Structures are given as structure tokens and as C-alpha cells.
């Protein structure tokens, strides 16, 4: 596996694992509170829809000329990556609430318990699970398609995504609890750095820039983005308003 393929697989795996943890929490809350078969049916149908989206759009994207593809994909990834990174910096600096799977699980369970359970098929459990998996999965499908099409390796990107889902499912089924110990906020930070770096690299290359050293400059670029993001975390943290000392 080349360095570019490793970066592709790692980026997709991390992004997919984060989204899978979030979807798993909601499906688990609905399944344990209401009706497992309906919750699993919603999950399965959403998974099928996502697979169809990737299978239909993947080959279509790889037909585009490489320069056009890199500008479009680079621009989209950069837009997406900057948004992820901004939120991750705010969370790391304490300026935005962190993602707490146990709190989300409790809220989802309370909401699910408030709706009466029908005697037949539980449409509520199906709809909530379907929506959660589809919405979280669309972000993953976007990343699989953009990374995969750009590297002409949608298969590897899809395999990395599937591996992440299986890893999360395996851990979740073993614990039968929300995966609160997964370092989700740190993973989101890493994904933000990777998406931003790849977006810059491919976008600039598609626009006609030549990177010194070609693909070898991707590693230093990731390091620069990471260090700059950490510096921004420190800068935002440094703006904390000092609390007044209480006289003893």
C-alpha cells in the first residue's frame, strides 16, 4: 500500500468511525427502549441507500478529467474540512460543548420512551434509526466518494469505511452501551486536519500549482495544519476570562 493509499484509508476510517459511533448511540437508544427489529430494519435500509449512492456516484466521478476532479473535490473537501476543524478547535479550547455520547443516549432514550409503542411494527423506531444512520452516513459517503474518486480507488475508501463500521459495531455489541470512551472529539480534530490538508493539496494541484516534492509534501502539509490548529486552540483558550479570587 502506497503512502497516499494509507492516508486515504486512515482518513476514511477515522471519519467513518466517528460518524458510526454517533449513529450507533441513537440506534442503541431506540432499540433498547422500543423495538429492536424496527430499529435494525431502519439501520439496514439506510445502509442500503448509502451503498446505492456510493455505487452510483463513484464510477461517475472517476470519469471526470483529473484536473477538474481535483479542483471540485479539493474545494469541497477544503470547505468541509475547515468546518470540521473550526468546530474541533472550539471544542478543544472549551468554547463549544463536547460531544458526549452518554448524554445523547440518555436524551434519545427519554424521547423514545415518551412515544407510545404500537403492538405491530414500530414506525417510530424505524424512522429514527433510518434518519440517524442516513444523516451520519451521508457525511461518510461524501468522504468515501471524494477521497476514493480522486485517488481512483473508491473500492479502498469503501473498504476502509466498512472496516470502521464493523469495528464500531463489534465494540458496541460487546459493551452493549454507548461508546463513550471512544476519543471522539480527538478523532474529529484529526479528521478536520486531514480533510483540510487533502482539500488544500488537491485543490491547489487542480488549480495548476506544483507542490515541492509532489505527494511527499502532503506529510509536511498535514503537520503544518495540525500545528496551526493546535496554536489556535491555545489562542482561544488564552482568551478565558479570569475568575475573581474569593477573599478568605
Amino acid at each position: 500500500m502506497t503512502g497516499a493509499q494509507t492516508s486515504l484509508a486512515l482518513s476514511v476510517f477515522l471519519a467513518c468511525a466517528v460518524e458510526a459511533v454517533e449513529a450507533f448511540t441513537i440506534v442503541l437508544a431506540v432499540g433498547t427502549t422500543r423495538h429492536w427489529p424496527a430499529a435494525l430494519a431502519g439501520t439496514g435500509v439506510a445502509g442500503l441507500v448509502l451503498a446505492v449512492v456510493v455505487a452510483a456516484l463513484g464510477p461517475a466521478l472517476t470519469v471526470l478529467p483529473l484536473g477538474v476532479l481535483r479542483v471540485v473535490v479539493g474545494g469541497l473537501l477544503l470547505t468541509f474540512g475547515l468546518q470540521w476543524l473550526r468546530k474541533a478547535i472550539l471544542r478543544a479550547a472549551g468554547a463549544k460543548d463536547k460531544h458526549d455520547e452518554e448524554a445523547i443516549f440518555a436524551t434519545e432514550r427519554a424521547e423514545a420512551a415518551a412515544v407510545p409503542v404500537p403492538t405491530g411494527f414500530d414506525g417510530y423506531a424505524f424512522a429514527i434509526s433510518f434518519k440517524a444512520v442516513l444523516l451520519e452516513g451521508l457525511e461518510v459517503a461524501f468522504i468515501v466518494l471524494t477521497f476514493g474518486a480522486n485517488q481512483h480507488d473508491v473500492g479502498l475508501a469503501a473498504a476502509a469505511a466498512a472496516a470502521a463500521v464493523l469495528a464500531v459495531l463489534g465494540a458496541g455489541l460487546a459493551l452493549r452501551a454507548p461508546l463513550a470512551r471512544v476519543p471522539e472529539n480527538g478523532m474529529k480534530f484529526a479528521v478536520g486536519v486531514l480533510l483540510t490538508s487533502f482539500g488544500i493539496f488537491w485543490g491547489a494541484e487542480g488549480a495548476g500549482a506544483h507542490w515541492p516534492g509532489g505527494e511527499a509534501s502532503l506529510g509536511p502539509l498535514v503537520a503544518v495544519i495540525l500545528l496551526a490548529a493546535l496554536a489556535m486552540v491555545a489562542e482561544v483558550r488564552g482568551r478565558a476570562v479570569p475568575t475573581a479570587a474569593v477573599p478568605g
Partner: protein
Amino acid sequence: MNARRILDAIWDFVVGDDPRLALAALVAIGLTAVVCAFGLSAWWLAPAVALASLRWSLRGARPSATSASKTSS
């Protein structure tokens, strides 16, 4: 779901909560293309614009008292 809601969902999905960052991504790649068209080296431009816009979007942000409750993605 009508067309307006679909467009809103796509906008929210791609652009997110700070449209200025999406604009910055366009500017970063567009400026790179313009500078390259003049035959100049421009590999440094996109990272510089992206990082400057990210830092600019964080101006005024400061740590809050609470930081461990439910949030959206």
C-alpha cells in the same frame, strides 16, 4: 420534502454554520489558479489563505463555563 428544504439541507451539509469559510475555500483555490496562470509558484497560497481564514473565523471565541453536554455533530 420540498425543493427549498432539500436545498437548505445541502447548503447546511456542505457550507455548515460559517459560510465565510466556504467562501475562503473558493478564494484559496481561485487565487491559486490566477497566480498559476501568470506562471508564478503558488503552492503556498492555498494553505496561507485557508489558515488565515480559519483563524479569522475564530476571532472573539473564548472558553465557556460549561463544556460537556449534548451537541450536534
